[in-house]
Every structure is written in structure tokens, then in C-alpha cells.
């Protein structure tokens, strides 16, 4: 299993975060199908960068489907989140997906959207513990 620095959230380090900024993590945990909740959660995540806080998004459970390039929301007229993911990468937001959930969903790391990294549950737990604000969506 590959190792990552679990203190890395977004492009900035937890230990050296700028004074006055917060580490904010949004957890996307539901299937993207039959609901606009996930799309709204991602839209909210982009909005949360407006106060220069360090924003990261973690995909858990069925939420990992939203991090996959195999998802084709156009087919069912669902909201397309390409712009949100593009913004996350432009802004340097951290995008992480639970490796176990990815395995259960049959999603290979090569099928993840740009910028999304698969990480272990313990690494996610460490990130959540280090965050100032966690928003499950």
C-alpha cells in the first residue's frame, strides 16, 4: 500500500497552515444517482474556498462513484460536475477517495477523475481528526 503524508490537506500543510485559515473537509458519502445532493455538496465545496480556507473533499462509501470518470451523468440528465472538479484542481484542493470503497465499487485508480487520490481509511481518519471543520454531505 502506498504511503502519503496524512498531514497534507489540499496543497498546504496542516502543520504550517496560514494564520486565520481553517482546514475544511467535505465528505461525500452517498451515491450520486437519483439525487442532486452530491452535486450540491461539490458546489458548496467550491464556495467554501472563497474565504481562503483550505478545502479538501473526501469520497466515502457509494460517494466514490462521483470520483469516477466512468460516471456519465448526461445519460440520465443529471448535473455534470466537470466544472467543480476543474475548479478543485485549479485551486489546489485535495481530492481523496477511500481505497476500500473504490475496490468495492470496482473502480481502478486509473479511472478516477484528475486530481483524485485513493487513500486508506486510517489516512482518511487522520485527515478528519486534523481538520478544523468536517462537513458530511
Amino acid at each position, binding site marked *: 500500500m502506498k504511503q502519503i503524508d496524512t498531514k497534507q490537506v489540499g496543497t498546504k500543510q496542516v502543520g504550517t497552515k496560514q494564520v486565520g485559515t*481553517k482546514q*475544511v473537509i467535505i465528505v461525500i458519502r452517498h451515491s450520486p444517482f437519483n439525487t*442532486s*445532493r452530491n452535486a*450540491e455538496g461539490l*458546489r*458548496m465545496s*467550491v*464556495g*467554501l*474556498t*472563497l*474565504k481562503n*480556507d483550505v478545502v479538501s473533499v473526501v469520497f466515502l462509501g457509494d460517494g466514490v462513484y462521483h470520483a469516477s470518470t466512468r460516471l456519465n451523468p448526461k445519460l440520465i440528465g443529471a448535473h455534470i460536475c466537470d466544472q467543480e472538479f476543474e475548479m478543485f484542481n485549479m485551486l489546489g484542493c485535495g481530492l481523496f477517495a477511500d481505497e476500500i470503497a473504490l475496490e468495492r465499487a470496482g473502480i481502478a485508480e486509473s479511472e478516477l477523475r484528475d486530481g483524485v487520490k485513493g487513500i486508506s481509511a486510517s489516512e482518511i481518519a487522520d485527515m478528519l481528526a486534523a481538520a478544523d*471543520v*468536517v*462537513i*458530511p*454531505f
Partner: protein
Amino acid sequence: MKLGILLTTDPTHENTNTVLNLSQTAREAGIDVAIFLMHNGVYNLTHSLFMELANAGVEISLCAHNAGQRGVGKVDKVLFGSQYDLAQIVHECDRFLSF
């Protein structure tokens, strides 16, 4: 001390009662409370007790985009704002809870 609350579920969900009671108790303890409504949470404006929170000094704001999508009309003492307002609450509060 400032408590920030995000509510994304409609008034039929138990979250509404939790937020109502939590906010009321916090205000009685002298804690500032700011609530942001988004997604189906904007429907909570139709809840009479929710509006009593505004009268008790709770700051209530919502995502105007979501309200427009759902046909929720403007109400006194509630800021029809944007995601920037949520970002501001998250940035300024001492504790933040999401429902």
C-alpha cells in the same frame, strides 16, 4: 463564542427539531448562532418555529439559488445570500455542525 450550523434537509426530517432545540439552547446560554440553509433545507423557512429563532437573535441565511429552484419566497429577517455567506460562517465560527 459562535456556533455555525448547516441544514440541508427539509422540515419533515428530524434534523429540523434538532437544529431548533440546539439553537434555542445555545442562544439561552449566550452563544451566537448562525444557520445556513441549502438544498432542501431552504424549505425550513415554512416552519413557524424556525422563524421564531430569527426573532430570538439567530442569524439565518440561505442559498438563494436553491430557494429559487424550489420556489421559496423571500422572508423578513432571513438573508437570501450565496455560498459566500456559508464560507463566511464556516470561517468565523468557533464550532460548526452540519445536518
